[in-house]
């Protein structure tokens, strides 16, 4: 019988051991290296702590399994789903809801009273009280018909409706006796709100939140330059190592070699014209000349930090590399990269003397191609690879796709890395399609995984499956 409540999660064999193994398996699929020894440690640790305390249980697992801050974040996300969503999963399966009870509670309270209670509970730091009030607030809020369906947005709206903010006090209570709520306390309440909203969502849609795309979403590129540059650098340095070793594995492998007829015949002269020894064509790793064009306009601000650090890494790995940045016009920055090893200094110098700071900030792709063709037409050859990093948003200007086509004809290979998800290509002023047909490959590139995939292609490997 098909269940009307969406796909039922595969529960597997009963017992905690199986559950824990499943959990680790899921962590592995999110990219955390959980070794067998770590699982053994986890079991040993669980022997030592009381399972009745959620915190102890969680921390014991985290200490043995999640061995860095990144891992820890993923761990938290999955932990809830695995160990504390079971009740919800069960409820879905049986079709149990608690609509009635909740509505009743919601109607009995008016919003001012609720506001007072919430404030008190937050100040007291009473977790259980906070959870109950969070549910009441959601119910009361839902009645006004303002739910947006997006958990994060709703949390903020409810917070505002309840006039909760860290530090400052609402106007009505100017008697100065009420203690301020600090950030931590407020965060705690917001966490409860979020949890309950998610629970609500599960009940309404009757499916559990998706398990898969966590790592992907979470490891998306940093959206502001102030965010952790180190994360980007770690990814890029990994890429660097791969670039350094890629191609080596091809060498010295007998399989798939091509016989060099001319040299074989030549060698056969020694043996009286009988080709006793076969000569093979030597395999030479591809050492491409690379030209990189990097869009640094405002529409890709979030990605340009990432792109610049990619450029930085590429410069370390390839001898023959020329790089350009562009907004309206192009400007060569090869020198900057070659003389400066420190990434921060590079970024600064590019923004100050790259020759791009003086223009409007709107990309003009058409003009960029024209200039590039003039600059490079001599140098481009079958051995050269051109890589464009940009979003193909022309701001309504002439795209000059045919000039781009000429570029592509002259260059051996031409790749395009787009910092936008494929879904957004060709929407609005994006003219990706016009350029894409001239490219040897166009890739979306907004996570480090995308980047690795691309590196594989450039270095002559096979693109990995997404």
């Amino acid at each position: 019988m098909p269940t009307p409540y969406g796909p039922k999660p595969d529960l597997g064999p009963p017992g905690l051991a199986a559950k824990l193994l499943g959990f680790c398996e899921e962590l592995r699929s999110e990219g955390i290296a959980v070794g067998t020894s770590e699982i053994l440690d986890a079991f040993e640790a669980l022997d030592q702590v009381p399972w009745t305390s959620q915190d102890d249980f969680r921390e014991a697992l985290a200490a043995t399994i999640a061995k860095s801050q990144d891992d820890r974040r993923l761990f938290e996300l999955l932990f809830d789903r695995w160990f504390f969503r079971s009740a919800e999963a069960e409820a879905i399966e049986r079709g149990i809801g608690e609509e009635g009870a909740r509505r009743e509670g919601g109607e009995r309270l008016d919003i001012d009273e609720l506001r007072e209670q919430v404030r008190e509970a937050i100040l007291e730091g009473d977790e259980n009280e906070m959870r109950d009030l969070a549910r009441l607030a959601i119910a009361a809020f839902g009645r006004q018909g303002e739910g947006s369906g997006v958990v994060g947005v709703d949390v903020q709206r409810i917070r505002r409706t309840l006039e909760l903010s860290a530090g400052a006090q609402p106007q009505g209570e100017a008697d100065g006796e009420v203690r301020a709520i600090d950030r931590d306390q407020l965060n705690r309440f917001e966490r409860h709100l979020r949890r309950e909203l998610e629970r609500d969502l599960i009940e309404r849609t009757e499916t559990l939140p998706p398990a898969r795309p966590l790592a992907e979403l979470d490891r998306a590129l940093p959206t502001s330059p102030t965010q952790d540059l180190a994360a980007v650098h770690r990814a890029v340095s990994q890429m660097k190592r791969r670039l350094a070793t890629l191609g080596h594995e091809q060498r010295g492998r007998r399989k798939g070699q091509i016989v060099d007829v001319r040299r074989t015949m030549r060698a056969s002269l020694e043996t009286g014209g009988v080709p006793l020894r076969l000569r093979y064509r030597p395999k030479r790793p591809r050492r491409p000349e690379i030209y990189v064009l990097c869009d640094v306009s405002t529409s890709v601000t979030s990605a340009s930090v990432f792109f610049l650090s990619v450029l930085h890494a590429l410069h370390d790995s390839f001898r023959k590399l020329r790089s350009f940045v562009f907004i309206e016009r192009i400007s060569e920055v090869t020198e900057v990269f070659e003389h400066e090893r420190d990434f921060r200094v590079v970024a600064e110098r590019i923004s100050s003397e790259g020759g791009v700071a003086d223009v409007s900030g709107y990309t003009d792709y058409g003009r960029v191609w024209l200039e590039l063709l003039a600059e490079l037409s001599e140098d481009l050859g079958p051995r050269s690879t051109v890589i464009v990093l940009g979003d193909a948003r022309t701001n309504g200007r002439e795209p000059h796709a045919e000039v781009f086509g000429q570029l592509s004809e002259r260059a051996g290979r031409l790749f395009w890395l787009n910092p936008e998800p494929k879904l957004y290509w060709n929407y609005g002023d994006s003219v990706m399609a016009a350029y894409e047909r001239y490219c040897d490959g166009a890739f979306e590139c907004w996570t480090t995984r995308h980047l690795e995939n691309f590196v594989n292609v450039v270095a002559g490997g096979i693109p990995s499956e997404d």
Partner: protein
Amino acid sequence: MSDGSVAETKEALAGAGYLADEPAALVSFLAQRLEKPVLVEGPAGVGKTELAKALSRATGRELVRLQCYEGLDEAKALYEWNYRKQLLRIQAGGSGAWDEVQDDIFSEEFLLERPLMKAIANPEPVVLLIDEIDKTDQEFEAMLLELLSDFQITIPELGQVSATTMPIVVLTSNNSRELTEALKRRCLYLWLDYPELEREMEIVRLHSPELPEALARRLVEVVRMVRDLDLKKPPSIAESIDWARTLLLMGSEDIDKATFEQSMSIIVKHRTDIDLVAERVGVKLADPLRPQA
């Protein structure tokens, strides 16, 4: 320290002057029960090293500390042959064939114990602190692996030296480079972050009990405000404590603009940071203290 439960561990640490949060207490507890090393990571000045010291005080064990730095090698960390003493022994000569002398000069008498060796060979259980492991190179990390998983050291001339009692091993790292997987695999992991407001207040008041509560709260709030700025070196807990002591010495009743500017250098220690902090935080403190910020 009795190692009965997490709560008891927490209490014992508090008794040693360290207010641990839940994860820290739990990991300390597990470290003793599972006899596994602990890797503590976190920003500078959140009390990573202090945790090891507190563990040593709470358990009554001796603290053996290995401070790591770039270029640290086995001779400095494990053991070294006492070359001069060996020479003397040979010169003193006496009777005996070469074999005898050789056996003699490569005996424990001529061994200079360095911290790691000391921790292993000690008949009493110790707390071994390997501080700032991220400062060393990967080769050194690899050398540690034998020690951390089996608690033994191999000396070619003498054979294996195994620990008779299990040391509590604490490794700290400021995360300045990624540690190898192999090392992480052998450790329990603990991330220490700046404490929450209430806990930092407790810590400050534990170290300077004469400080009035209102002032302590104010102090911690200001420090947190400063930490939120994008500084080269955000103030650590130790600096909060120093600042509290300074305020006590200055006899300040309240942190207003003047006091702040006079004593700011206690918590902010970079030229550029000082300007930034004076600009952002100093302004907010212009008014006299109100009941709430």
